[in-house]
């Protein structure tokens, strides 16, 4: 580093801003390649062309409908998968008997690549919403199920003993000890489940849909409009990240006690980075 680096510049580099440098450079390079005619526009439209096609789709009045139906599918599939996973995970985590009954079967089902269910779901449930939502639910199910089970199993037995000493049992034990002790693992499962729900909504919409962001992808391919494909990918990224952030914010409210610990660790790592920068 040179002496010309200002204090403010260093602070920005130490913070989150440093992560924006590379994508900004890549975008600039991408735009330049397109402007100079090096990249073929029928395969790789410029970033500005992608934004323009987003605007056109919006002005045509069809974009919000695509977004809406995709969000609805993700939400319903995620809620359905999470609900079933929470019940079964709680059961297998809490009771060794239920674990012996259910877990081997569920683990066996887990080893089936979930996309392999598509044909049979379409056959059983039709080509419309039911099969799509079921597929998304299957995707969201496993991480939530596994984390719920592991979270409950890993609750510190010594804390449970303290609760029993003070007369907690049944629902009170669940509410005061098992639930709060399980929540951190549960939220990890929810985040992973939501990520898979987004992955599976693409699969579900690619397999046959007349609307949705996934349909936009397919439509862009079939009508030779790469800008639309990239616009749909951009929207997936934005809504996927936004929904994850919403879940993190929700989780923070419930597991603040754990978060404050993570914050301390982050601050320590950040301070170490700062110290290293100062040395340079």
């Amino acid at each position, binding site marked *: 580093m040179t002496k010309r680096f200002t204090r403010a510049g260093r602070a920005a580099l130490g913070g989150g801003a440093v992560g924006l440098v590379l994508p900004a450079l890549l975008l600039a390079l991408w735009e330049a390649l397109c402007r100079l005619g090096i990249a073929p526009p029928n395969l790789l439209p410029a970033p500005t062309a992608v934004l323009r096609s987003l605007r056109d789709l919006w002005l045509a009045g069809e974009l919000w409908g695509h977004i809406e139906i995709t969000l609805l599918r993700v939400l319903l599939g995620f809620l359905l998968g999470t609900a079933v996973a929470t019940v079964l995970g709680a059961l297998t985590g809490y009771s060794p008997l239920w674990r012996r009954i259910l877990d081997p079967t569920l683990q066996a089902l887990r080893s089936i690549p979930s996309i392999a269910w598509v044909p049979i779901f379409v056959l059983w449930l039709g080509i419309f919403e039911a099969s799509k939502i079921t597929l998304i639910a299957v995707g969201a199910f496993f991480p939530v199920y596994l984390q719920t089970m592991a979270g409950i199993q890993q609750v510190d037995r*010594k*804390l449970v*003993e*303290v*609760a*029993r*000493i*003070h*007369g*907690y049992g049944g629902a*009170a034990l669940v509410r*005061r*000890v098992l639930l*709060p*002790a399980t929540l951190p693992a549960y939220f990890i499962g929810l985040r992973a489940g939501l990520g898979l729900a987004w992955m599976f909504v693409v699969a579900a919409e690619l397999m046959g849909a007349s609307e949705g962001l996934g349909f936009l992808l397919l439509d862009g391919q079939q009508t030779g409009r790469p800008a639309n494909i990239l616009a749909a990918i951009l929207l997936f990224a934005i809504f996927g990240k936004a929904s994850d952030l919403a879940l993190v914010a929700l989780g923070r409210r419930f*597991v603040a*006690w*754990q978060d*404050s*610990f993570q914050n301390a660790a982050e601050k320590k790592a950040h301070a170490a980075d700062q110290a290293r920068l100062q040395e340079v």
Partner: protein
Amino acid sequence: MLQIRHVSKRFDGFAALAEIDLPVDRGEIVGIVGTSGCGKSTLLRIVGGLEQASSGSVVLDGVAVSGPRPEVGLVFQEPRLMPWLTVRENVEFALAKRPREQRRPLADAALARVGLGAFAEALPQQLSGGMAQRASIARALVARPQVLLLDEPFSALDAFTRFSLQDHLLDIWRAEQPTMLFVTHDIEEALVLSDRVVVMRAKPGRIHAQYRIDLPRPRRRTEARLQHWKERILEDLDLAVKGGDAEPEFAI
């Protein structure tokens, strides 16, 4: 008073405790020392109602102990605080049976007694080891138990913190006079705190000797008579002479 009558405990044919008889007077402090595996922690867990004796009984004021009860408070080697609750909420945790409006003042009073009044809002992870153990003592004391059981309560702490918590425990005892039964592998700790030291030996777990420590408190840790008892207890445990048939896993 607390009576431990003919208590035996077997695990799969292995005799962890054999015919333990130990009457404890109200307000008495009894320290139990012994080598690893002599069953001293098991005995404490039976008295606390966490485990059932294979035979024999524990009777508190004429009532047989069959499970955990509010008259008996427990302190473990680890603080065992709920990490998601503040220090005050951890203490209130022991007051589930009390009306809501009583919990907070009682918890704050208990925290004040262990010198943690200023840390009521802190989370357990923000406390040092000694402070966390004081919080767990506050939780054990908040319901004003008649008997306080402590299972190696200070063994995870450094020597200075240990001394200060020992003094602290005696202050609490002077103020509230609970019957205290504690397990330790620190002979000096047992001698400084106890009215009576019970020496246990293993295979099967049994009471080998008892010493009444009739010295006024506070006691000096360097007191000559404590050294005398210490030597006798070391002999009881075959640890007095270097190279004797001492149990190899036992460290002083």
